[in-house]
C-alpha cells in the first residue's frame, strides 16, 4: 500500500522546463489532462502537438531528438500498450531518448501499480522491466524534484525513460 499524497501539477511543469523540454506531444489521458495537459496547452514555453495515436508521438520525439530538441510524450497506459512496437524500435533497438509521461488510469486508491486488479495497469511495470526501460513513479510530491535530472540523464545516455503518474496531479 502507498500513501495518497497529491502532487502539484505546476511543479511537474516546472521540472519539464528545468529539463529544457520545449515540445509536448500528447494524446489526452484522464489522469493528467486537467492538472497537466490543460496548463501546458496554455503555456507559451511549450509547443504542444496533439496526436491521433500514441505511437505517432514516439516517432515525432524520435525525429525531434536528432535536432537536439527535447520533448515529452503524454499518454495513458493503454496508449503505452498500444505503442509497444514503436517503443521497442525507437527506444530499445535505436536507443533514442523517448521520454514518456504515462497516466495509470483505473489504478485503485492506495494501491501500487503492481497491486492493481486492472490488468492494463498491473502489467506496466513488469513490461518496462522486461524492456529494460528506466522508470520513475510520481507517487508523492517529493518524487517530482528528480524529474529534470532524470530527463537530463536520459538525453545524455540517449535512452528512453518513463514517468508513471498513478493519480491525477492537482
Amino acid at each position, binding site marked *: 500500500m502507498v500513501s495518497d499524497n497529491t502532487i502539484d501539477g505546476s511543479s511537474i511543469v516546472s521540472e519539464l522546463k528545468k529539463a529544457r523540454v520545449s515540445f509536448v506531444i500528447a494524446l489526452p489521458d484522464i489522469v493528467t489532462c486537467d492538472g497537466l495537459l490543460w496548463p501546458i496547452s496554455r503555456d507559451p514555453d511549450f509547443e504542444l502537438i496533439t496526436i491521433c*495515436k500514441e*505511437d*505517432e508521438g514516439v*516517432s515525432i520525439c524520435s525525429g525531434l531528438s536528432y535536432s537536439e530538441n527535447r520533448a515529452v510524450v503524454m499518454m495513458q497506459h493503454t496508449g503505452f500498450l498500444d505503442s509497444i512496437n514503436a517503443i521497442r524500435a525507437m527506444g530499445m533497438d*535505436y536507443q533514442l531518448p523517448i521520454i514518456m509521461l504515462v497516466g495509470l488510469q483505473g489504478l485503485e486508491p492506495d494501491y501500487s501499480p503492481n497491486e492493481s486488479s486492472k490488468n492494463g495497469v498491473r502489467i506496466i511495470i513488469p513490461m518496462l522491466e522486461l524492456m529494460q526501460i528506466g522508470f520513475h513513479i510520481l507517487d508523492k510530491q517529493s518524487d517530482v524534484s528528480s524529474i529534470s535530472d532524470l530527463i537530463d540523464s536520459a538525453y545524455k545516455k540517449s535512452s528512453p525513460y518513463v514517468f508513471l503518474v498513478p493519480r491525477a496531479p492537482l
Partner: protein
Amino acid sequence: MTMLRDEALELLATHCPDEIVVPVYQSAFDWMKIRPHKLNYLCTGAMGQASSHALGLALGCTDQKVLILDGDGSLLMNLGSLVTIGSCRPKNLWHFVLYNGIYEVNGEFPIPGGFETDFSSIATASGFPRSYNFDNIEELRKGLPEVLAGPGPVFVCLKVICGKHYPRNYETIHDARQRASFKAALATRLAATRS
C-alpha cells in the same frame, strides 16, 4: 497510365539533391542507390512511422525542407498522421506516397482498397493546403517545380509500378552507424544554415 518507381525517384533526386529525406521500405532501398546522402533518414523502425518521424524532423528543423517517401501500406498504418500534419501545417514538409497497391516487401500481397483509395483527397480533407496526383513520368516532370515551390505541407501521390530491382539492404537501414552519421550531418547542416 503508370510510371516506374525508380524513374520517378531519379527525377525527384534531380530536384532535391541535398534535402532531408525519410524514405521507407522499397522506396528506401531504391533511394539509397539513387541518391546516396548522409541526410537520408533511414531508421524509421516500425512500419507506418515515417510520416511521424518526418514531422518531428520538420518541427525541429524549420529552416530545412523535409521529404517523406512513404509507402501506401505504410501510410494506411498511420493514416491519422495526415490529420496531425494537417493540423500542425509545417511549411517545410513534403509527403510523397509511392502507391503501387501492394505490400511489396511482404510478399506483394494487395493492400486494402487496392487502387481505389484516394490518398490525395484524404490529405486535402486532413488539412494539407496542397495535394497532387501523378501517374505518368512526363506529367511529373512538368509538375514537380510547382509541387516543390512555395510552402508546405504538400501531399503528392505517385501511382507507380516497380522498376529496377534494388537490393533490400535491411542491415543499413537499421544500422546504428547510419543514425550517428545522419545526426552528425544534420548538426553540420544546421550549424552552417544558422551561422
